[in-house]
């Protein structure tokens, strides 16, 4: 942990839906920011700087969406910076907020995440533009087909089956029923998952996430200031890491396998080192992982150090990641049940903070004191990890 620790005082999020027709983008932001300020018992005048997370902005249909939202998050007269690391944006923004505090540049920082994917008529068309324009865009590789390739490799690597993926889907959908903010509230069965519409083999509709509109906000402050508050989540460690762009380069590397994203491992290593975590499975109480597909969550178990090489699947087979299990993963339902992309990483971060503050409501993990929150961007390329705890040390 750095010498001047940052702490989270409050978290606010909107109800996530496919389309929030009742509000504009700035109104969504206002909803989340108001909730976060109320949750932290702070006023907008207590905020020294703002980190805004929204990406890709093409989804919003507005270039630099932070500018036309500025009055909605109270940024006038304050330093404002917009962070963008693809899907990892919300996680990067949370770390940016922490670094601004830890460095002594600012005392109290508001981190805001916004995504309004409904503004784009074809999200996959936008996603296609993320690829290399000369060699790859014509191939029409997209997120679903890209992750299907990962799932295929995982079948070979650790024996992934449809049953494993269905279990993860049901677990996360069941958890979401306990979270009033989740986008999807569906009571599903294993058979529902296995009979859902095929997308790209072996992936089916209920293995993946919805497109969500929504916003989230977190209020962070310095350790000295946090000690004056009763309900605090301490930022004990953080890391972010980037992998090479081309998937083929990752398949061929001696230390890399497409099944298990090494960059998440690198990010977690840094976060664990700062936090003094040496045995994640036993030292963490809960994990809010950014996994928009069921198979990715299983692969991430190994990256996050919860299981030895090739044995992450055992956490599924033993039910360890269920609510009430050894290490509950996404008790909120995670991004399989709400995925406002640029804000999703911040939602994971905020949910992890609620867990260690003991304020997660019906999806609270009993006795949770140390939590891990992650985010992922690109095609398994950008990762962030943050360890939050109920105590500063």
């Amino acid at each position, binding site marked *: 942990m*750095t010498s*001047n620790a940052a702490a989270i005082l409050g978290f606010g999020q909107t109800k996530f839906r496919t389309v929030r027709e009742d509000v504009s983008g700035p109104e969504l932001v206002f909803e989340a920011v108001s909730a976060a300020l109320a949750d932290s018992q702070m006023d907008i005048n207590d905020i020294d*700087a703002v980190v805004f997370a929204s*990406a*890709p*902005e*093409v989804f919003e*249909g*507005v*270039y*630099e969406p*932070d*500018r*036309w*939202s*500025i*009055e909605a998050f109270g*940024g*006038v*007269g*304050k*330093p*404002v*910076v*917009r*962070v*963008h*690391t*693809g899907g990892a944006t919300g996680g*990067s923004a949370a770390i*940016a907020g*922490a*670094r*601004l505090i*830890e*460095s*002594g*540049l600012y005392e109290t920082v508001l981190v805001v995440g916004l995504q309004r994917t409904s503004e784009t008529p074809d999200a996959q068309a*936008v*996603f296609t*533009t*993320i*690829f290399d*324009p000369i060699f790859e865009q014509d191939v029409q590789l997209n997120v679903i087909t890209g992750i299907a390739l990962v799932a295929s490799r995982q079948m070979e690597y650790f024996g992934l089956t449809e049953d494993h993926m269905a279990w993860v889907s049901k677990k996360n959908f069941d958890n979401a029923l306990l979270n009033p903010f989740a986008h999807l509230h569906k009571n599903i069965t294993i058979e529902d998952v296995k009979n859902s519409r095929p997308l790209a083999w072996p992936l089916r509709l209920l293995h993946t996430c919805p497109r969500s509109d929504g916003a989230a906000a977190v209020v962070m402050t310095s350790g000295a200031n946090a000690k004056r508050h009763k309900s605090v989540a301490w930022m004990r460690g*953080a*890391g*972010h*890491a*980037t*992998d*090479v*762009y081309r998937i083929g380069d990752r398949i061929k590397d001696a230390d890399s396998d497409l099944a298990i994203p090494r*960059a998440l491992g*690198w990010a977690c290593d*840094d976060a664990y080192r700062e936090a003094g975590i040496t045995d994640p499975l036993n030292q963490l109480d809960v994990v809010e992982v950014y996994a928009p597909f069921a198979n990715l969550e299983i692969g991430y178990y190994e990256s996050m150090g919860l299981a030895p090489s090739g044995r992450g699947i055992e956490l599924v087979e033993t039910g360890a990641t269920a609510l009430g299990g050894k290490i509950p993963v996404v008790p909120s339902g995670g991004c399989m049940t709400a995925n406002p992309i640029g804000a999703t990483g911040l939602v994971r971060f905020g949910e992890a903070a609620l867990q260690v503050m003991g304020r997660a409501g019906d999806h609270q993990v009993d006795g949770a004191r140390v939590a891990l929150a992650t985010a992922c*961007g*690109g*095609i398994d*390329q*950008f990762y962030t990890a943050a360890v939050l705890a109920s105590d500063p040390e």
Partner: protein
Amino acid sequence: MALKIGIAGWSLLPPSAEIPGALDELIYSSTSQALVDAGITIAEIDGVCMASSDLNDGRAISTMTLTGSTGSFHKSEMRVCNDALAAVWMGAAEVGSGAAQTLIVCAWNKFSDVVDPAAIPALALEPSMHRSLKYHPDAILSLRESQESGTIVLTDAAPLQPNDTAAAVVITTDGHPKAGDLVLSGFGSSTGPYLRPGEPVLKPTQSAVAAALKFAAVPISDVRRIFVGGLHRISSADIAEALSVPESSIVREDPQTADLGYAAGLVALVHALELGIDGPTLVISAAGLGVESANAVLVEMK
């Protein structure tokens, strides 16, 4: 609280209407030269903080394909979508927090790959009510100046010239063995309202400068020169008056009409470093629909 960040090296591809080569070649040329200048290898770098625009770069997550050229592979990557001086203070925060010892701050602009750069700023307008009115940042500035002065202010400025450029600065902890004789010691930023008239156009710039000087505990009277990135439509005389400095202390881009996108602030910083720092030197930038997003950093000799 005092925070001093070392400067180990820098590099600039001078702005030009078109710099031949692919975008990643442009960036690599700049970042690799900055490392050479700093005497630091990429293996010694802990992370990269960058400023770039998806719309200017032409893809939804443009930095995905640029990890090799920015140097962020297997490292932390923090990207801001603001003028690059924001990447400087964000990078300073990473170093100042202890999360990094050495960091590359980089920014670029390759407008020669963009079909119609002039169409991009208007996309920042609220889509239902404002975009259809075809506001232009110059017109917005004129409207705000009109409101401020109580008279009609017309825009007759020459169009901005889209330029290609890339710049990189290697920053370190203050005591790092590769840190040179210069430090970043002041950091300030401020943001004005969206479109709304009613406050002086240069108020965010004044606030950013005041914050940077306060942070460094340096009075404005001690500042030798002020290097300006962006703020194309504002005269040096107006900037000098707003900051209470002599106009002779203002150093502008040449030509002043060169549009460097998000890279403008970092280009101004490298410009200052290349010309030599002989006393407290401010680097400022302001961008947005009405120069409402302002940043300032102070460079001093140790």
